């Protein structure tokens, strides 16, 4: 009966936080090198100052230098994308909004690839952010030009921006790559966590902490946008400033995520909707729960990407798209404004 139903939200948070820790613990034990569960954890423990590793340096490196950073990056990227998607859906009042579908991911990939080619990889997150911001501005400008900013126009504009960004990204890689450019193109366009090491963990976790958490805290104001801008303004919200801050925030966050993982689609679409079904649309609960479930979701998608066709590896974006595209269709069928 109460507005917040705090016990249910608290219970969901605790359950999801526990599930996230369990997922991390379980996912690091999957992999082609046959390392036992207890050996994996003894190895990680040794790096945290708890005893000696039972593994050879090579096998110890597989756990500490490859698996753990990859799983942690997946968790951070999943959380970041889910927060971005939930915020974008509220601020644009578009249930189909998602950093991938509105072209932000593709713009971020282009920015990232451009600085990699120029050899200034320190600027990677900044360039990805700039790419995401430009792509978002382009999508909103195209969608809003000459008529009202409807959800369908937004998605169509997103497709245009996304396609152009993907084409340019592919072209830059094709033009400059010395080796296997196709593999690299695919990992940017479909997303891949195969290259995630500790620096990737640092970038992704920093972006979630520095941008994602303030977005989550400030995000409760998004509730007021449920009935549109006028209604939000009438409730005392500074609409223009809020929209600006929130959209730049999602572009920053998406940029940070894409710079370490490429454009992984649909995470920002699936999780916020799934969480809304369970706890409702109040952002105070929605944003943290979407972040936790996004982290868990991407850990398992990436584990599936590694394990399904072992020893070959799928780009993780294929796994998320196989799950996400049907969700998109379902939302499309349910949404009145696309009729």
């Amino acid at each position, binding site marked *: 009966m*109460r*507005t*917040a139903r*705090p016990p249910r939200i608290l219970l969901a948070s605790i359950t999801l936080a526990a599930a996230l820790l369990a997922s991390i613990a379980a996912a690091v034990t999957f992999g082609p090198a046959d390392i036992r569960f207890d050996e994996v954890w003894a190895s990680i423990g040794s790096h945290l100052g708890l005893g000696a590793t039972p593994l050879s340096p090579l096998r110890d490196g597989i756990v500490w230098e490859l698996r753990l950073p990859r799983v942690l990056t997946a968790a951070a990227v999943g959380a970041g994308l889910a927060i971005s998607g939930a915020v974008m*859906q*509220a601020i644009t*009042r*578009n*249930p189909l909004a998602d950093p991938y579908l509105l072209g932000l991911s593709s713009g971020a990939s282009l920015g990232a690839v451009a600085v990699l080619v120029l050899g200034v990889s320190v600027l990677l997150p900044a360039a990805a952010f700039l790419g995401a911001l430009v792509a978002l501005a382009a999508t909103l400008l195209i969608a809003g030009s000459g008529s009202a900013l409807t*959800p369908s126009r937004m998605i169509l504009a997103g497709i245009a921006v996304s396609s152009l960004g993907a084409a340019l990204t592919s072209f830059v890689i094709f033009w400059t790559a010395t080796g296997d450019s196709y593999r690299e193109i695919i990992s940017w366009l479909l997303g891949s966590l195969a290259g995630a090491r500790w620096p990737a963990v640092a970038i992704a976790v920093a972006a979630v902490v520095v941008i994602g958490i303030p977005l989550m*805290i400030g995000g409760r*104001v998004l*509730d*007021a946008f*449920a*009935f*549109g801008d*006028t*209604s939000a*303004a*009438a*409730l*005392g*919200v*500074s609409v223009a400033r809020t929209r600006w801050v929130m959209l730049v925030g999602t572009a920053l966050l998406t940029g940070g995520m894409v710079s370490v993982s490429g454009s992984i689609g649909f995470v920002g679409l699936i999780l916020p909707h799934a969480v*809304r*079904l369970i706890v*409702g*649309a*109040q952002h*105070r609960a929605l944003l943290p729960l979407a972040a936790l479930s996004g982290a868990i979701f991407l850990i398992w998608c990436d584990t599936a990407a590694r394990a399904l066709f072992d020893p070959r590896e799928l780009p993780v974006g294929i796994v998320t798209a196989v799950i996400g595209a049907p969700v998109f269709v379902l939302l499309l069928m349910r*949404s*009145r*404004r696309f009729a």
Partner: protein
Amino acid sequence: MIPDDERVDSMSAQQLSVVLGGRAVVDAVDADLRGGRLTAILGPNGAGKSSLIRVLAGIGRPASGALSWAGEDWFATSRRDRARVAALVEQDVNAELPLTVRMAVALGRTPHASFLAGPSRRDDEVIDAAMADAGVTGFAHRQISTLSGGERQRAHLARALAQEPRLLLLDEPTNHLDVLAQLTTLALVRDLATRNGLAVVAALHDLNLAVAFADHVVVLDAGRVRASGPPAEVLTPDLILRVWHVAATVLTHPVSGAPVITFDRPERTHP
């Protein structure tokens, strides 16, 4: 029926103008919107009713003129403070994301909420009272999108009441409602004005509803005030012809004695 107490809060507009796309959609409007009274804003389509309601709600600034609440400059206060005084019920708005009636009503607490704290016990009480006043308690847990037009209008009204406003602004609150829902909606806000001293301002199309429920009407035409005053005095056949371009006859209700406006068929089939 109309409290004459000078301490009753009221909104006062002087020479208020709103310019949209280079055109004055609200043009030098003077109006006195008093607490305890239901003021109806009347006028043909495009007369500037919605634009006036919006600027009264403190959304968007007037191009010129003065607007004051309880003697204070309305735009000298913060947007949040304005939202604690004035609540707006727009016409025909819906949520795209799933939202229950209670959650929608809880949004009315936004201007009162502290930034970090969750809803307080008092918030819950205000929300429950607003839902009871608007008669939506029975479907508090239904999704907004599944409600009928009348139910949805009541839910929006409950959200506005949860703001604990002193000024309640309604943009065509009877739009798309059936006769019973029109009457109950206006009776409800009429009652809030009388009982709680709220200043209620409603943009209306139906002149007979204005006669039946309003204490005061302001007739707009092309952004300008053409007449204002008690509805029975203002809504003469002459004024209706000049503003709406429709010949009308004002009858007297055989039982209540109240004026009833009837319209002749127009000679032209397009305006």
